[in-house]
């Protein structure tokens, strides 16, 4: 949560709203699917390994707070204060920021619960259904995929990077690009990480996830040793005791990045009934998407407070 939205206050508001709605989403999904998502909102830390990092962090968060009229809370903590939260921090840790609204949730449980919940609500899923065409006539969209043809009066394009090719079919642009992130995952181990940190967190099962990178390399999702080593190095500097933890796998994936890094939500003017939505923080924003945005789409139009997320802010030519 913290650090999201420096430079774009509508996004900070939106993220805050999602954080507030998360407990509701979590209990709704738990009731629907029987699965606990492992939501913890006890706050989270961002660690700084040099004075320069600390100063930069403080400057960003100060700027963010000044846009937020007091809604956004955070504290800069010095080394000693951080040690109270996580006693075994390494000597390179100079301080960090703490945000009470920060937390984490198990993203895999979320994914499964959303999918499961959708099916329980009567939704249908066609897997392995790459879309090759979208036609529209008299307000009905005809979608052709590898699994056949479906028709509906309302269409939501949420295909992430795939929206680049699909959005023009409904008069939109969705200028997103891939941004690679790599992480490392350790064996399950005794609880070591007390609070989620931006780059270090421990799942309920005990594995430690170490991240991450931001690489502009196109559609490459390979795991590369130079990046993995940097990630491991920073983690070890943060908590030296990590050095004996066994890494059992790496992972890499592509973020769906817009030019300014903030979500893009649009309803098509040329093809009414068609929407395109992308973001790179689908887990953080899941509650806002499910309990706010979805309602807008169902009732036929995006609410005013979401108009700041239109693709037109990028001066794209109409599709």
């Amino acid at each position, binding site marked *: 949560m913290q650090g999201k939205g420096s430079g774009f206050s509508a996004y900070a508001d939106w993220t805050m709203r999602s954080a507030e709605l998360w407990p509701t989403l979590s209990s709704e999904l738990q009731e629907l699917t029987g699965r606990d998502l492992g939501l913890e909102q006890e706050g989270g830390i961002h660690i700084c390994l040099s004075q320069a990092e600390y100063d930069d962090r403080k400057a960003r968060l100060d700027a963010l707070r000044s846009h937020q009229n007091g809604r956004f809370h955070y504290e800069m903590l010095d080394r000693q204060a951080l040690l109270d939260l996580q006693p075994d921090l390494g000597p390179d840790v100079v301080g960090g920021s703490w945000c009470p609204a920060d937390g984490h949730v198990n993203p895999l449980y979320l994914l499964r619960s959303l999918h499961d919940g959708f099916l329980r609500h009567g939704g249908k899923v066609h897997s392995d259904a790459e879309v090759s065409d979208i036609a529209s006539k008299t307000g009905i969209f005809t979608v052709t995929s590898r699994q056949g043809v479906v028709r509906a009066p309302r269409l939501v394009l949420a295909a992430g990077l795939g929206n680049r090719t699909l959005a023009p079919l409904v008069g939109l642009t969705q200028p997103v690009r891939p941004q690679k992130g790599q992480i490392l995952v350790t064996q399950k181990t005794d609880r070591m990480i007390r609070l989620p940190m931006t780059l270090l967190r421990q799942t309920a099962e005990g594995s430690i996830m170490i991240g991450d990178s931001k690489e502009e390399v196109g559609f490459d999702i390979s795991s590369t040793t130079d990046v993995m080593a940097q990630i491991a190095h920073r983690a070890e500097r943060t908590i030296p005791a990590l050095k*004996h933890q066994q890494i059992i796998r790496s992972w890499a994936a592509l973020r769906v990045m817009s030019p300014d890094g903030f979500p893009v939500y649009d309803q098509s003017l040329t093809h009414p009934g068609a929407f395109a939505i992308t973001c790179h923080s689908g887990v953080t924003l899941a509650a806002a998407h499910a309990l706010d945005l979805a309602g807008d789409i169902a009732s036929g139009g995006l609410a005013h407070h979401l108009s700041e997320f239109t693709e037109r802010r990028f001066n794209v030519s109409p599709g």
Partner: protein
Amino acid sequence: MFRQVRPQPQDITIYIDDRPCAARVGDLLANILLQEGMSAVHAAPNGTPRGPYCMMGVCFDCMVRLEDGRFEQACQTYAEDGLRIYLPVSVVDESGQ
């Protein structure tokens, strides 16, 4: 119980959960454990006991903890004098599962 066709002279001592055990330099740790009757060495996430299965490093069910805290496969670890290993037979997470 596992037994050796021709037991070899044992020239070193290793420690399993701090209990001394005679062994021979270079013995495969998994063999030692099995010959001592320890077919269960750690627990799966659901708590059930697990032990050596493949003896070639692909099943990861013969995990033991070394003195420095690392988890290692017993079938890829060799005995040296004074080696200390601990068997994580019961692994219980904070929720008690």
